[in-house]
């Protein structure tokens, strides 16, 4: 597959276009007998401002789907368009620029830099996009960690670390927030706090959130729930009455 730079950066899709659009996307790993079909022809459209939960058992292709939308991996077949950018054939430099400008990532294991304080972890990304350090402090306050700004990750709880990770993702004001099992390593109360922070980013900040999890309870809080199985999109349902994060239990 030939890779080329993304076409001219646009602010986003036109109002009648979806923010995220996947057309017949397939992803294979390996070859021959060792070949694994992680995704097999997935079609998907996600409008701006939607909170989407992707469910599915291990090996169903959830993380692969997220990595493709995140521009971390490229599809074997099909097209992916996010905020007007064609990701399928973009080169590494363009994908880096895309991730920097449009995406926020929240990882299961937080992946904060242990030698930087909470504020500095967020400010590192703020510097990356040219935002002032005060913006990092503000975002940290938005996730309820104003008083923990100068603490190092090792001195923080898992929930706090994950909220720092969310602040780090939000500080560059991305159009899309991708969260891979963000509550996977947290207890219920902490998980709810993290979930609430993500919902605020979506409903108050107008961002599209794609949350990958195998925890079906979280699906109750989503605007839309996707079910993946064996690399295929098996179910796609809108949730007319999302439950507030504080009310879910698992």
């Amino acid at each position, binding site marked *: 597959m030939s890779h080329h730079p993304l076409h001219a950066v646009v602010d986003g899709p036109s109002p009648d276009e979806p923010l995220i659009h996947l057309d017949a996307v397939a992803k294979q790993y390996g070859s021959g007998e060792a070949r694994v079909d992680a995704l097999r022809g997935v079609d998907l459209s996600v409008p701006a401002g939607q909170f989407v939960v992707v469910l599915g058992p291990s090996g169903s292709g959830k993380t692969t789907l997220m990595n493709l939308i995140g521009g971390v991996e490229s599809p074997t077949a099909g097209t992916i368009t996010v905020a007007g950018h064609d990701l399928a054939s973009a080169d590494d430099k363009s994908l880096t620029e895309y991730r920097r400008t449009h995406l926020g990532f929240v990882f299961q294991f937080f992946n904060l*830099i242990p030698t*930087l304080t909470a504020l500095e972890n967020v400010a590192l990304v703020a510097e990356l996009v040219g935002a002032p350090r005060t913006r990092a402090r503000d975002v940290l306050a938005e996730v309820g960690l104003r008083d923990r700004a100068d603490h190092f990750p090792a001195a923080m709880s898992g929930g706090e670390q994950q909220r720092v990770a969310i602040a780090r993702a939000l500080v560059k004001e991305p159009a899309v927030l991708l969260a891979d099992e963000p509550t996977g390593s947290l207890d219920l109360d902490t998980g709810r706090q993290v979930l609430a922070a993500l919902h605020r980013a979506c409903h108050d900040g107008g961002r599209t959130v794609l949350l990958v999890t195998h925890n079906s309870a979280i699906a109750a809080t989503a605007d839309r729930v996707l079910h993946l199985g064996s690399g295929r999109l098996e179910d796609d349902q809108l949730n007319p009455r999302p439950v507030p994060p504080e009310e879910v239990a698992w």
Partner: protein
Amino acid sequence: MSILGRTLWRDARARAGQFIALTVTVALGVALFGASYDAFGSLTASYRGLYDRLAMADLIATGGPTGQIADEGRRLDGVAAASARTVGETAMKVGDHRQYARIVGLPSDGNPAVDKVMVLSGTGLDPTRSDQALVEQHLAGALGLEPGATVDVATATGWATLHVAGIVASPEYLWPARSRQEPIVPFDQWGVLFATQKVVDELPAGQVEQQALFVHTTDAPADTDARLRELALGLGASSTQTLAEQPSEATLNEDITGFGEMSVAFPVLFLLAAGLGVSVLLSRLIAQQRSQIGVLRASGFARSRIRRHYLSFGLAVGIVGSVLGAVVGALAAASITRLYTAAISVPVTVIEVRPLTVAIGVLMGPIAGGIAAYLPSARAARIEPAEAMRGNVPAGGGRLSWAERLVPPLRRLPVRWLAALRDLGRNPRRSISTVIGVALAAMLVLVSWGMIDTVQILLGQQFLTVQHQDATVQLMQPRPVDDLSRLDVDGVSAVEPELSTPVTLINGGHRYATTLTGLRPDTTMHTFASSGGTALTLPASGGVLLATPLRPILDVAVGDTIEVDAGSGHTARLRVAGFTEEPLGAFGYASLATVSALTGQSGPTMTVSSALVRFEPGADRAAVITRLTGVEGVAVALDAQELYDLAQKFMGLFYVFAGVMLALGAVMAFALIFVTMTTNVSERAVELASLRTLGMSRPRVSRLVTAENLILIVVGLVPGLALGYATAAAFMSSFSSDLFQFDLRIRPATFVITAAAILAVGLVSQVPALRSIGRIDLGLATRQRAS
């Protein structure tokens, strides 16, 4: 091979680059040990073998009734043989070429009991003839002399022709030094001939010395030298020289001692670097395999088995490197010995491969690898199964860097810079290893370049600042000082008389044989200055200036009076007027009048046999020398520039040496930085993948890692340069003697060049690690916990 053993090799294979880098470092250390130690041994054996074969003198007594000294000395316990001889210095010519020659008297059969010669081509002296000479091989090589050729030597009555019977090697002139004060002499300006006593007897008076020579028995008591010295001085000898003090032996000994020192220093440096690398690599391997260790422990593997498993990783690096290094070292030792003995024309080369050297070399690597691996292995053995099976340990606590604590405003730096600063303290062992590696490499490079700088600066000082003559002119016969105006030929701007004589300087029990040079008190041919740079004046009478090394040798101070013995009963007591700083030799200086009186001259007209000449700027040096040689009564006119040029030529060897050191330093720095950097990136793969996923470009991540590395290199350079300076100073000081005064001088630019070279090596060393950043699977960020 056990399953665990197989995993060991797979682990090594998975880290082939690092394993090879460390193995090569061990191999270099062991090879350098074997090469330098065996070369040291083989060269020593080559010299000693020749000394034994040719009965090299263990002690030479000069002056006094040498026949009697030899006879009485022969009877002393521990003395195997003794002989007496006469040695003289004169001018010689071969065709139009003129130079100085030392003529060593031999018995008529050409076979003395001490200091024999080895005929390399032609024959020995014919006992029935007195017009023959044997030519020392270095002189023969320089002038292209072969048996059958003729040379003319200046005698008291004019030129005498000698027929070359053979070309010979002499243990006394393996390194053909004119004296301890003149260890380097161009062979086309000075050389050695061996002739019968009759020839030496015809040399001009005042240019010959009587000597008694002694060879010890193999089981000679330790005080044999002392007893012989006491006997010789008691009978009237003016000075004695032990084997170690003889110029050839002293110069060669300094040289090969360097091999001995290197055989210790190099292995220490390289094995230390390899050990640090093994420790860093193994620590990372163990951190990665914590869960595997947990499984093994839970399955019943004893702690000692775990410890042995990881210990064997260090041992493997050491064994592979050692075996490789020992083989290369043994081969290199033989080559070095052959090249060295060929370079200085030692006729007998002894190559010895010592099993003990090989055995020590083979053991060095595993010992170093084992020590380096011990602590990480012990830590692995202490891991509890439950703890280990929890998986990777989350990253430890962060903290402010030392720099930020010392300079709080640093906290306002861009966060990426703070990250680089703080990452230095994240894995102190790794950071310290990098710093030590850089420091060792910088030290290695600076020591070698420091030697070059020192020698260059001191040569410049000797030939440009201290000595100002362009040529030395030797006359056939002593001439009145006023007569020297004849030397003011076209191209000459100044002529000054010089009167030199061999003397023994005596202060109580301290004696030193040297040359006393007489010059005008207002001489413009020589600058005298103290070590502090203060100008000194040659005393008009009754005083002497001494070269700085003579202060401790004679245990004298300014104002003290010393005895000066010029032989043949001529002595004087002179006051020490000062100590003059000169890089080469340890001479004494006095006024012409003082030296003239010392050598027994009397009468209203002072005569001299040599003169110092300075040329006009831009003069054709060769043409002026030819004109000077053509002046009636001139035996030799020697261009002073030639000695400077010869010394500069020797610098070529230093450049080769420094180049090798630079290469070795680069290999060492490369190996260690490569291992620490690749380990650093491997350890932080998830973190770096996260940064890339968050939108940090590959060049920016590379710059972040490079910045950390640069800080470590700079931190390592500071102690490295300081350590290098101190080591170079100690190294040069160990070479300093009355032959050479090597006070370390390093040009400021050398520090900059060394730092730049190490920095360049550091930057190149990290290229593989930076390339691996480009290959990091970004999916790691979503799948794995950072460690």
